[in-house]
């Protein structure tokens, strides 16, 4: 088993920089998720690691050894493709055994490994079938089985759940987590779905336009986003952003938006003072906005904003309120017992302990 390291890795396709000076270390046995919007370079990173693409600059290490000049078949990594890439003319057994037969592993051992992987994945009764006779979920398990039998130092998974329906996706997420714990191998998982990232990862690496934005635990990325991109990408529904100016009134620092102003509390106050009179971006998550009647005990608030309700979405366990004040449209997740109607004027409470301030020029979070 081995860790993986990207050292100043850049990949260019002509004039396009797909991966820009990536520095990322992935310890052995970690479940790391590469997440980002389409075209951010996350699949390219996976392909560079697998050897299917060559790096333009920099070095990739697997188990401490540089692998830039090592062909894909000799890197001892296994990949699960988004399309599963099962060989349609081979049975499930032959699909799983193919890689082992190429390496001249004895037939008895091949048989043992295939059957063991099939048992782990609960596909023992599918071994004689062809891929076209399998459902999407079964094909995905065969693709995983094909990777497991190789006993690689790292598993690379390129959006393996994207072809599954929502219910199966949720089920398979849990199964992949269990598989990771069972195998104890490094998993590097690519997805554009931040929910998958948050629920599966030991750590998440967020990419945008080929640049690593932040890497950390799901908790870190959610609570301490380094910049406005990560803040807006992690968390569903996404964080609300407001253009505000930092002002001071009667020894209190405020963030003044078009139609409201909210005080800056705690340590953020001293940081905000450095931007006095300047425009900054206020960020607050929908779940940190409340209706007064259902404000949970112990949640402080120090800002009440008058808004008009535009749209209401009943989710069962919560209510999503699309509201507007001035030119600011934003979203609040409130108690499902809230009784409001579209067009009604209400007050939304901001939990200012959980708000974020960003420098609009650089996008970086302003914090102590």
């Amino acid at each position, binding site marked *: 088993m081995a860790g993986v390291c990207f050292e100043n890795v850049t990949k260019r396709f002509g004039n396009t920089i797909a991966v820009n000076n990536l520095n990322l270390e992935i310890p052995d046995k970690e479940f790391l998720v590469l997440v980002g919007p389409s075209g951010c370079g996350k699949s390219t990173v996976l392909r560079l690691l*697998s*050897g*299917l693409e060559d790096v333009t600059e920099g070095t990739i290490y697997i188990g401490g050894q540089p692998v830039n000049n090592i*062909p*894909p*078949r000799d890197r001892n*990594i*296994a*990949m699960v*493709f*988004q*399309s*599963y*890439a099962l*060989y*349609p*003319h081979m049975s499930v057994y032959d699909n799983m055994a*193919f*890689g082992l037969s*190429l*390496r001249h592993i004895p037939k008895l051992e091949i048989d043992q490994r295939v059957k063991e992987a099939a048992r782990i994945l609960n596909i023992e009764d599918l071994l004689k079938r062809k891929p076209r006779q399998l459902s999407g979920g079964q094909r995905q398990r065969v693709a995983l089985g*094909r990777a497991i039998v*190789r006993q690689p130092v790292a598993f690379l998974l390129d959006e393996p759940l994207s072809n599954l329906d929502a219910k199966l996706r949720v089920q398979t997420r849990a199964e992949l987590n269990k598989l990771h714990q069972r195998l104890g191998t490094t998993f590097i998982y690519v997805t554009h779905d931040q929910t998958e990232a948050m629920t599966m990862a030991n750590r998440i690496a967020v990419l945008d336009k080929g640049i690593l934005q932040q890497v950390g635990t799901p908790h870190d990325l959610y609570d301490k986003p380094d910049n406005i991109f990560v803040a807006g990408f992690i968390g569903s529904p996404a964080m609300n952003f407001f253009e505000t100016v930092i002002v001071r009134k009667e020894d209190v620092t405020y963030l003044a938006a078009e139609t409201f102003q909210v005080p800056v509390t705690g340590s953020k106050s001293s940081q905000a003072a450095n931007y006095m009179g300047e425009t900054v971006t206020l960020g607050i998550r929908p779940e940190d906005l409340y209706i007064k009647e259902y404000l949970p005990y112990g949640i402080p608030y120090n800002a009440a904003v008058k808004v008009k309700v535009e749209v209401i979405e009943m989710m069962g366990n919560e209510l999503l309120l699309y509201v507007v004040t001035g030119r600011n449209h934003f979203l609040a997740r409130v108690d499902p017992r809230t009784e409001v109607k579209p067009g009604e004027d209400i007050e939304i409470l901001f939990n200012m302990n959980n708000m974020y301030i960003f420098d609009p020029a650089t996008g970086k979070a302003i914090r102590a």
Partner: protein
Amino acid sequence: MRKIPLHIIIVIIMLVWMTPAFGLLVSSFRPSTAVAESGWWTAFQTPFQFTLDNYHAVLTQNGMLRSFFNSLIIAVPSTVIPIMIAAFAAFAFAWMKFPGRDIIFMFIVALIVIPIQSTMIPVLRMLADVKLVGTFPGIWLAHTAYGLPFAIFLLRNFFIVLPKDLMESAYLDGASNTRVFFRIVLPLSVPAIASLAIFQFLWVWNDLLVALVYLQDPAKAPMTVTINNLVSSFGTQWQLLTAAAFISMILPLVIFFALQRYFVEGITAGAVKG
């Protein structure tokens, strides 16, 4: 219900097209006197006068049986060799990266438009220089060269639409290009290769000009050359000519009906995708 008129029209057209060939077939089973005296449509009136003598005469007295085997000796290698070479070339053009790949492929495709007739004299000279004129290897080479551009074009266009993930998965599994070709690409390409085999086999089997120019040895003449000679020697003996023609059609018909599924797939599989 709305398609019934269309089906009726199709059946009528089919009957019109088949009528001349059917007439020739009937004539091939009639004695010479009957053919001289009446039309083939009268053959179904009593007394019936069907005979196998025409086929017997053609096969035993005019070398048609030998020509049948000559046609096989020419057509089979002239089908297998270009397909093998084209498959290797097509895989390289579709999945391997090398300098000038696309330009070389365009050049090969451009060769399709060159008329065979314009190449015959130079090719004949080249074959003469290496003493292959009048030999089977010589004509195999000629048919291979003439068939390769289209074969490479067809197979490359088929190979290139195979999912890239399959190749990459095989590379990661440890396969070399050779293993990917034989274990992944070829098994998945059976429809395209079968349809190409039909195209090439039928083209070579029915060829007259290339055999006339490059073989020049009556002992090695294929059926097309032998039938061509029979036209002048038999003159108006339609019963013998039609028997000879249908003997030459037997094998292509068998191949076509056995593999017609691949023929239809092949038309849409490689030739029109790019």
